[in-house]
């Protein structure tokens, strides 16, 4: 699923927080968005998910403009923050709701959830706890699993490694890469964790004050050094 961005601008008052004249994310790419706080990573993701309105320009997913057509929702999985979770649901109910929304039957859901057991660590399913009672880490895991279990053609995750213990971070990174390789999913993730992003991404976009200042091919993980140099000199 190709994602095209054209003349995209987002302003809050007189402040331009995002300005991308042109960007194409090819089908099957695993794109890492990196940048300092306030660079515009989350804003870009919110625009891709039609959660905020662009001041100018548009985003197309598979040829459909995201703000004009809802077709993209059927093949997009995403998790940005806690507002994606239904706090009065248990994880089982939450996953069941997602499965129903995406037309996944119960057996398929159970099979798909099995592959996320290592990530859940027996702390999510079977606890009879509501999502609001979970720690931030477990809420993060639930959100990520909810985005991935639909086997999306486009996967958008904002800072998926936040709140996770080291083992879970490695597991999430592995699952994202496997999804990308197995299903050809176009993945866009943002993170401050340069090592994970460099390890799994095929392409890295470096944002600074709303603009893409570096578009790095990372097929051989060769963008790491350039990124480290950039962030070291940016202090």
């Amino acid at each position, binding site marked *: 699923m190709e994602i095209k961005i054209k003349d995209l601008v987002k302003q809050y008052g007189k402040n331009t927080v995002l300005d991308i004249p042109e960007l194409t994310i090819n089908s099957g790419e695993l794109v890492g968005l990196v940048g300092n706080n306030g660079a515009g990573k989350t804003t870009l993701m919110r625009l891709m*998910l*039609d*959660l*905020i*309105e662009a001041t100018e320009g548009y985003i197309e997913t598979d040829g459909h403009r995201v703000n004009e057509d*809802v077709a993209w*929702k*059927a093949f*997009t999985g*995403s998790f*940005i*923050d806690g*507002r*994606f*979770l*239904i*706090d*009065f*649901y*248990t994880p*089982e*109910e939450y996953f*069941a*709701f*997602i*499965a*129903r*929304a*995406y037309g996944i039957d119960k057996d398929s859901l159970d099979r798909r959830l099995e592959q996320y057991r290592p990530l859940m660590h027996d702390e999510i399913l079977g606890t*009879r*706890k*509501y999502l*609001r*009672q979970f720690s931030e880490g477990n809420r993060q895991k639930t959100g990520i699993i909810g985005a991935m279990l639909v086997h999306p053609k486009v996967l958008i995750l904002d800072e998926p490694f936040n709140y996770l213990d080291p083992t879970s971070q490695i597991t999430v990174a592995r699952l994202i890469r496997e999804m990308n390789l197995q299903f050809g999913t176009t993945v866009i993730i943002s993170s401050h964790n340069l090592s994970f992003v460099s390890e799994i991404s095929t392409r890295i976009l470096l944002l600074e004050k709303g603009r893409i200042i570096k578009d790095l091919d990372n097929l051989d993980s060769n963008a790491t050094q350039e990124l480290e140099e950039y962030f070291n000199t940016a202090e």
Partner: protein
Amino acid sequence: MNENVNVNVNENENENIKMLKLLLRLWADQKRRDFKWGRFLGEAYFFVLFMIVSCTVTFVIYEETGAAEGMEMVIPFIAAGIIIPDFINKLLMKHDETVMDHYLKSKPIPERSWNRFLLVTNLFSFWNWAIPVLLLPFCVLFLKWQLVLPSFLLLMGVSLAGGVAITAFCRARGWTNKWPVLVAMVIWQIIALAYAMTVIVLPWWIHVAVFLLLCVGAVAVFYNYLCDLRRYDESKARADRLFLGASSLFSMEYISVLRSKRLRVATFILPLVFIFNCYTQHINGLNVMFYLMLMFAVFAPSMMLGQWVFGIEGNYFDGLWTKPVSIREILGNKFRFYALLNIAPTLLVMPLIWIAGLSPWLLAATWLFTAGFANLTLMPTALISSRIELFQSAFFNYQGASMAVNVYGLVVIVPLAIYCLCTWLLSPVVCAIVLAAIGIAGFALYQVVIGWLSRAYERRRYTCFERYRQ
């Protein structure tokens, strides 16, 4: 040694007072920064409406009875009489900060200072002033000027006792700790009523002075209980029941109500008040007042939830919008869910068919009218409502309210007015036919209305999303 102990006690007391002042300053800062003119004017508007009603009723009584001598004898009975209704009112409306937030708890703020803070803030709580202020016109019109202030103070004393009781009730965890408050309220009510009767024996001034002392005593009792309550905030609640088979959008409607105490109270408890009124009102005959109560009873559950359509979903709308979920389907589900909700109070007032001779056709027509038409008037709040916190205690916590919602709330008057006019002007049979016809028309057209509404929502979705994030 004794001197050292005295010095320590004084130092502790000074420390407590210092911390109390700090807490009050924090509280004042928070109130000042949360203050919004729009919300204040909206709340003031409704309070003024209630004051107008109070003044009007008082004037009417004054016109008919004149300023009768000895009206001050009624005041103790009024004070005693408002205790339980005031408690119920505060249970629904008053939102109390009973436990320190984590940023306070991790600081060296003594529990005693916090408890005193709770007591002092009760003095400024709107809901502790509401009923005494609403009764002020009665005091001013019917009493000699020297008696107005002590009467008002007595009403305030009773209200304050109830306010502190509510604070204790909210702070108590588990029914083992909540029951003593309820029992104490009943005992307080009995004592107050019994004492009120002595007004015919004692001189009024002495009676009121002693009554005030009793109020102080009641405040002290509830305050001491509040201080004794220990609250550990770790939530160990587990889902009683998993709704695994109910994963649809429709099931989300009732699951959210069942799992949010705030929504449960509003949806199931408040209508009971109106149902109770129906059973007491029919004694005066099946007049307009009775039918108004009937309409409120049937309408109440959906009216409470429908004030903020999408207020619940606002908590997770980002998640909903990014999934293949239809806004139209959500709105349609709400309409159907509200219709189902209206059935419960309808069934609960059914005995009035035999007790009071209520027409069963009119009752059925009331449900049809409410479910098919009145609920439809609520749906447009989807365009203007804010997110509501599902897990706060009082339903009318004004978080999420806006001037637009307050003003739109007046639209609810339209179905109520139509209903009252029909029951007043038409015979029961014709009234039932007209109301049923309107309701059936609503059911027939609701898909059209929902379709229009969903398109309107999608056009202004970004504004709505932004509102949910605040």
